């Protein structure tokens, strides 16, 4: 809350105004909620180089912050992206998705084997909008 807003609220309080709210159910007093430092973000749309790739199922970015860098990974897609901010790591992740989409969807099934075939199946289920 800005100083100005706080000041206005204090002024209103001095004039007898108070917030009308019923009693609430106890939270655990004076405690921060235990929110993990590794975050998972579901995303379905990826933009890079003017291209848009859309996934039917959410792709989960597991984002961690370490040594002044953000890391976004997805083990299923073998993607490991790096950035110095949340937005730049998402940008890098999206760049990987678009790149691998182009790579795998342009490969014939007879050209690849094993894990590459599994990845092709996933990328084939994606849709390119632009």
């Amino acid at each position: 809350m800005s100083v100005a807003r706080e000041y206005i609220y204090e002024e209103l309080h001095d004039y007898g105004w108070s917030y009308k709210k019923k009693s609430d159910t106890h939270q655990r007093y004076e405690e921060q909620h235990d929110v993990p430092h590794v975050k998972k973000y579901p995303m379905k749309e990826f933009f890079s180089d003017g291209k848009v790739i859309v996934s039917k199922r959410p792709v989960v970015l597991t984002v961690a912050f370490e040594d002044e860098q953000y890391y976004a990974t997805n083990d299923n897609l073998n993607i490991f992206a790096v950035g110095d901010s949340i937005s730049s790591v998402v940008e890098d992740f999206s760049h990987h998705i678009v790149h691998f989409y182009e790579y795998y969807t342009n490969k014939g099934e007879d050209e690849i084997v094993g894990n590459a075939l599994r990845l092709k199946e996933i990328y084939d289920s994606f849709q390119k909008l632009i």
Partner: protein
Amino acid sequence: MDQSDVVYPNQPLVDVVFEIRFPGEVRVECERHLFWEKIRDDYKKVLVPQKSGDTPLALMPYKFRREDDSMTVMVCLNSFALSAARYPGYQEFSKEILRVYDLFGQTFDVDELTRVGWRYINVIPFIREDGIIPLSRFLNLGFKVPKSVPEEFKNLNLLFESEHEGSSVITQLQTIQRHVALGEQEEALLLDFDYGRVSTDDDILRFKNVPEYLKEAHDKTRQLFEDFITDEYRQYLNGDVI
């Protein structure tokens, strides 16, 4: 098992609390050790209230916590509550509530209640899209704002109370942030449901009926949560992801 019993693998819950309040009962304040003796094997940690604000200490709960911090029993002069920091799902949570409630009832003679509450606090991390909160990906929430106001928000702080057949729910939706490093912050949506049912002259809440109130509180709050979230977000919560 119906939909309301489903435990999502990617659930955003950070705290769930069930609470009953009753007219001040001094024995609870003076003899809380008798109750703790019955649960201390499971709730070994004791946290005492710290004075803050204008709330009298007697109305701030003693907390008896599990060693792994997963659940906390909170007791004070006029209330009894159980909170779960790692929600195990309704089946398991309600079983534990009823177990400690039963022990509480064996220790203290509480009959009338003044209020029954259920709190369901969710933290939904998000990444901005072009500087805007991608609200519609997570929540079914519509605002009627004037045409000159874009319906894409940079920040949110919304709180409203609604009536639901004898009970009320305070819903809070707010963007929250946490400092990560110099100039860097993580952001999330706080979606907090605070269900409450109060005793009235026509409908006096009784301690013996807590199992019924518990189910009602859970079912209504869970239904609200289900109504609030989009199918896209539910797909993520269900673990139907890549």
